[in-house]
């Protein structure tokens, strides 16, 4: 019954100036499922997610120890090119951050990095991914306009399309709907349910209802520690720890 594990985190700790932000994390993330990392703000969920594609590298004050295995390959202790690791994962952040260029080039940016430069191929790909993010119909007439001219909900879908365009296997999403209106949020959520056929999705959120709507698997974190991890069904109906029960009842937030 248990699916393959796409990502496994083993004994991961992370310190910032002597403070332990993540304490001995051990989690497994199943393939082609939506795994929700849940917890009150400041519990380290975003940091855990960022360490999965080594964005922690750009903060010199962060010191990471432990192992993160993706497809059974340790990505922390390796001399392998970090950009190749990151390309396996698309990132969707809290607010959309379109790159300072046109709508078209936002998608083409990642494709060009991978060496795809032929014009007609790029055109086709851009169209394909914009369609996948259900944005094509809205923007097909103005691909050359700056991405900042889109509404915030459209920008977030653009960022999703941009992430998909590098052909990742995993999508990392950090509270991707927190800056969006309810309708745009719904569109993103719907997209996630479609995408899990082909992608392993890791979603960070502090919204219980969103977690309940989307999750196949839940990792619950509190103050830098993993308190509980379980399939969604089990987590929401038969929580094993006192803290989880308190959180689900809404007394921690």
């Amino acid at each position, binding site marked *: 019954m248990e699916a393959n594990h796409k990502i496994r985190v083993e004994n991961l700790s992370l310190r910032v100036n002597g403070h332990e932000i993540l304490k001995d994390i051990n989690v497994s993330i199943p393939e082609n499922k939506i795994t929700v990392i849940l917890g009150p703000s400041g519990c380290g969920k975003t940091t855990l997610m960022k360490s999965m594609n080594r964005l922690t590298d750009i903060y010199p004050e962060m010191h990471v120890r432990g192992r993160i295995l993706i497809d059974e390959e340790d990505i922390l202790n390796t001399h392998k090119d970090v*950009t190749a690791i990151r390309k396996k994962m698309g990132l969707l952040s809290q607010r959309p951050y379109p790159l300072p260029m046109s709508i078209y080039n936002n998608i083409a940016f990642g494709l060009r990095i991978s060496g795809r430069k032929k014009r007609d191929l790029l055109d086709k790909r851009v169209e394909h991914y914009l369609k996948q993010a259900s944005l094509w119909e809205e923007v097909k007439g103005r691909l050359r306009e700056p991405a900042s001219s889109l509404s915030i909900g459209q920008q977030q879908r653009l960022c999703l399309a941009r992430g998909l365009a590098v052909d990742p296997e995993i999508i990392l999403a950090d509270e991707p709907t927190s800056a969006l209106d309810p309708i745009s949020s719904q569109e993103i959520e719907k997209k996630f349910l479609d995408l899990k056929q082909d992608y392993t999705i890791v979603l960070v959120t502090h919204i219980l209802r969103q977690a309940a709507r989307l999750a196949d698997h839940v990792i619950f974190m509190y103050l830098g520690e993993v308190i509980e991890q379980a399939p969604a069904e089990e987590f929401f109906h038969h929580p094993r720890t006192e803290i989880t029960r308190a959180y689900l009842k809404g007394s921690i937030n």
Partner: protein
Amino acid sequence: MRRYLSKEYTFRRKIQVYEELFFRLIMLLASLLIALVLLQIVWSIFREGVGSVSWEMLTNTPKGGFYFGKEGGILNAIIGSLYLGLGATLLAFVTGLPVALFMNTWLAPRKRLVNLVRFTLDLLWGIPSIVYGAFGFALMIALGIKASLLAGIIVLALLILPIMIRAIDEGLKASPPGLTEATYALGATTSELSFSVLTRQCLPHILTAILLSFGRAIGDAASVLFTTGFTDNIPTSLGQPTASLPLAIFFQLSSPIPEVKERAYAAAVILTVIILIISILSRIFTNKYSRNTIKF
């Protein structure tokens, strides 16, 4: 096809890695260059001038024949510069502090106006000191004032006023809004808030603003060129002309006589030391007096 792409990809990655290394190297060199230039400046000023600094030159005014290399010192310029610097800083402070407070308390709700004031101050800061000097000169003629210590103080005060206000303003702007609310909640009036709470909260900024302005005032030459005249005596009233260190250096350096030039170099050492002391002091103030500042 796929193989071909990935081969090209690794090749391009390799080029990029070397490109990054190359740029990191020249970026490092750029930063290093800036630091080294500072050392070079201080070193060459000291090398030229330190030998000629003497007690005699610090404590005497120019004697007869000074400008032909005979006896005397630059006390007139040192004292003149201190008078000018202190006077201008004082004038700019007493007129500038209320403006900065006014902008951040009474005027604060009118955001557009405050931003317009900030914008104007930034523009004023960008006007070269020689223009202030020329403007001051035009003003003096219009008002019938002679070149004097007072005229110099006024022009310098105008020159440093934008720096003074903006530096204090930055501090006030950064003070937490919660502090203002809490003070009002205690029943304080706006002036009580301004003068007792905010000035204390921003003390480090205010001290830095004063030092910054003083440093600028004491070192500026172009604006006092027109307005203070130059004299060998120490001024005894605001209406008299005065010497200053920058002008003393400037004038004496254009002399063909080596002894006079040496004194210019020595005066440069003294001015540099004053500026270095100011820099160090302002660093200490920002670090030490931030104790009373509430951080959020």
